């Protein structure tokens, strides 16, 4: 018992240091300032412009999560149950949007419609000039398309793994009496209900917190109001208050998830894996639809970036001019991923421990820190850590402050991945160790960790990618002289010629793709080796 609380205390302690304490500090200050000012909170929040923002934010989140889930279920079904050639290639392609920072993806997406590019040229022949397309994309449409372009691929992949938890004989049994469509509707979807609801809510929350993409298409959403109060008015307290609706909405969404997804252990059955061959006669059509999606929303925008006057010599020059930034990025991402995986593991162990009384608080911590607006986190960290004492100035003036932000912001990913896997482990693994007299730590290191190796690697990689692409908070707190590559792209994008920005974006994509692909190749080789 004592060990749980010790671990919990450590997690809480770090949470306090990374962000919670700075945030509390800031909230108190803001509330004081706010009370001293003559603005009335209710009047401010219920202003028409604010209500419009809430409306925009909610509609965008609903549209994006609804479309992403529906299309994701369709593609997920294809990836899981339909016999396809090149399935692996499809899956790999769907991973690309996940690893490219959203800001870069928006640039790619917009440039896809320029006259000089393939699609843009084609559309202009069809009478859809750049101007028409831009006016169509302006606001909600563009934001929704780009966000769907980002979320559909990952949703498809998650849905397909969700479905693969269904025993193949369950599907076989249904196939002898039912059409494939009905099997999907009555067996597969209801079976995966909880997972699907969860995906919907996560996309909803992710969209709600989005600033970069709606801003890119000039759609006003709540995070933009937070930014405006902050950047134009330098009004920290109102900026905090502006993020209040964001919080309340996220809290409601979180509560709904908790209520809708009660314990569903009955589904944790032994899974028999078998060949799936649903929708046999439509498989060509399905493969084609998946290919068209991948081509238009992944290959075209990103390929287009690569094609823009990028000579080898130019790229070499760009690399030599950016070596510091590249190293900084890799260094931070590596540290970030390492600590995130450790931290996530600690949280996951606690969350899945049956005897630990505050299990649900772990998820609450994660979600809270994830939806907390970047800018305010940055401000809170500065105000709290920039003090005239050696310890805080040591943290503040080194890159550690960025690590704090990463740990605070992204812990939900390793935590969820690892705790999902831990939940699936048979309890007998640990019990056998207990009988053998191994202590808790020994059991974790020698019995549990080897069994969740894959998820640890996945957590590390995913955290690495998220850290590598982070802009929102990093731009606010990075120490002087310690620029990362995404920040450089962001600051250079303002006034550089297009090919410089494209070149830098390509560099970042390569930087992300090279380790990602090499890990996949290594895994593939090891799997083959294990077969022989």
């Amino acid at each position: 018992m004592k060990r749980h609380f010790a671990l919990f205390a450590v997690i809480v302690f770090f949470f306090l240091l990374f962000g919670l304490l700075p945030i509390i500090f800031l909230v108190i200050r803001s509330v004081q300032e706010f009370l001293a000012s003559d603005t009335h909170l209710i009047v401010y929040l219920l202003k028409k412009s604010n209500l419009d923002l809430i409306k925009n934010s909610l509609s965008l989140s609903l549209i994006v999560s609804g479309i992403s889930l529906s299309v994701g279920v369709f593609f997920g079904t294809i990836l899981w149950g339909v016999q396809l050639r090149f399935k692996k290639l499809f899956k790999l392609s769907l991973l690309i949007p996940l690893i490219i920072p959203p800001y870069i993806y928006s640039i790619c997406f917009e440039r896809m419609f320029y006259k000089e590019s393939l699609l843009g040229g084609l559309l202009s022949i069809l009478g859809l000039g750049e101007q028409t397309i831009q006016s169509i994309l302006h606001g909600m449409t563009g934001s929704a398309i780009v966000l769907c372009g980002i979320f559909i691929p990952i949703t498809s992949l998650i849905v397909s793994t969700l479905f693969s938890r269904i025993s193949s004989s369950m599907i076989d049994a249904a196939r002898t009496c039912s059409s494939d469509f009905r099997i999907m509707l009555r067996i597969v979807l209801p079976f995966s209900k909880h997972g699907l609801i969860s995906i919907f809510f996560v996309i909803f929350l992710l969209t709600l917190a989005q600033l970069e993409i709606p801003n890119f298409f000039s759609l006003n959403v709540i995070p933009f109001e937070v930014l405006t109060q902050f950047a134009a008015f330098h009004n920290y307290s109102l900026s905090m208050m502006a993020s209040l609706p964001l919080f309340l909405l996220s809290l409601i969404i979180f509560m709904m998830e908790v209520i809708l997804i009660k314990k569903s252990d009955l589904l944790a059955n032994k899974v028999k894996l078998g060949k799936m061959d649903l929708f046999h006669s439509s498989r060509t059509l399905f493969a084609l639809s998946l290919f068209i999606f991948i081509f238009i929303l992944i290959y075209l925008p990103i390929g287009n970036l690569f094609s823009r006057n990028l000579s080898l010599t130019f790229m070499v020059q760009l690399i030599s001019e950016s070596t510091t930034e590249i190293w900084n990025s890799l260094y931070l991402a590596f540290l970030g991923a390492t600590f995130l995986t450790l931290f996530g593991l600690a949280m996951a162990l606690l969350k899945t421990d049956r005897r630990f009384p505050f299990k649900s608080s772990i998820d609450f911590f994660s979600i809270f820190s994830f939806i907390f607006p970047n800018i305010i986190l940055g401000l809170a960290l500065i105000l709290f850590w920039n003090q005239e004492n050696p310890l805080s100035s040591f943290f503040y003036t080194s890159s550690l402050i960025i690590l704090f932000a990463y740990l605070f912001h992204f812990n939900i990913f390793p935590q969820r991945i690892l705790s999902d896997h831990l939940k699936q482990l048979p309890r007998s693994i640990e019990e056998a160790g207990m009988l053998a007299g191994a202590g808790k730590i020994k059991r974790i290191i020698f019995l549990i960790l080897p069994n969740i190796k894959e998820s640890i690697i996945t957590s590390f990689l995913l955290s690495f990618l998220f850290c590598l692409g982070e802009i929102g908070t990093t731009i606010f707190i990075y120490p002087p002289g310690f620029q990362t590559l995404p920040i450089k792209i962001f600051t250079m994008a303002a006034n550089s010629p297009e090919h410089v920005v494209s070149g830098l974006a390509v560099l970042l994509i390569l930087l992300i793709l090279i380790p990602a692909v090499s890990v996949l190749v290594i895994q593939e080789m090891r799997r083959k080796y294990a077969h022989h």
Partner: protein
Amino acid sequence: MKIMKWILMAVLMVSSCSRDKNVVVVYTSEDQQFSQPVLKDFEKETGIQVKALYDTEETKSTGILNRLIAEKNNPQADVFWSGDPMRSILLKRKGITASYTPKNAQNIPKLFKDKEGHYTGFSARVRALIYNKNLLSKDQLPKSILELTDPKWKNKVAIANPLFGTTSFHIAALFIVMGDEKAKDYLLKLKANGLHILKSNGDVRRKVASGQIPIGFTDSDDINVALLDHKSVGFIYPDENGIGTLVMPNTVSLIKGSPNNQNAKLLIDYLISKKVELKLAQMECAQIPLLAGVHGPKGVLSIQSIQSMKIDYEAAAIKLTEILGFLKQWIED
């Protein structure tokens, strides 16, 4: 709890980088691609390591300005190099900058520097109109921005979000030269005429260059970037015979309580020099030298040839804080 010890050890190991003594920390909102080469030169010539924090108008300058304000009680920066005077004035009013008169300051026109030495201007940009040559011929062009409320410009004009960056400066300046009533009236008419309010000046440049919008307000450096990118665009300095064109110098300030005070002064002296002004004039931003007797390369305007708007920058900065609420309302309605 052995693991915790290891984690702490690792943290200490990775972060125990040595802290150089001979450094200067500069926060700059001048675009990185122009400021970085200048700072690199300074490093080479003096051997003082420059630790820079870059920002850009495209990001609404949230980073640097707010950071300077947040760091007030324990300053980390030595020098603030701003892309326009507004931010320097804001910092002065918040008590974050200190007074320092650089060596060459006497050769900078009075208009572009603070009386009390909190900021000194150098290389300047100009607010101008950019237009698409394929959509507008020379004789269709307006002479004054006041013409843009005319129905013939309906839905044809773009401006960046006036809450941020140089656009906010420009609008505040208009309030000073035109008076509040007239300026408000002008803005409302502009909005009623289908004005496109875009994210940033760079966005105005891109949308005009690609032909989506015929004409727009932006900065001279944006225009020059489009020209060098072989876009089919032209530019005009409006109101040459009227209220004048807004000139926006870079400004540099010393931060109050800066940790590397001596180096900071060296860097400020370095920035207010013929060499730096020439360099910034030669780069893609084609900034206009302000020091008496410094002339940019061919194609770069001289400050004497521009009819500059005669306003008190500090008054404009104060005005801006007054009209921000109005501007926010103006965008939202």
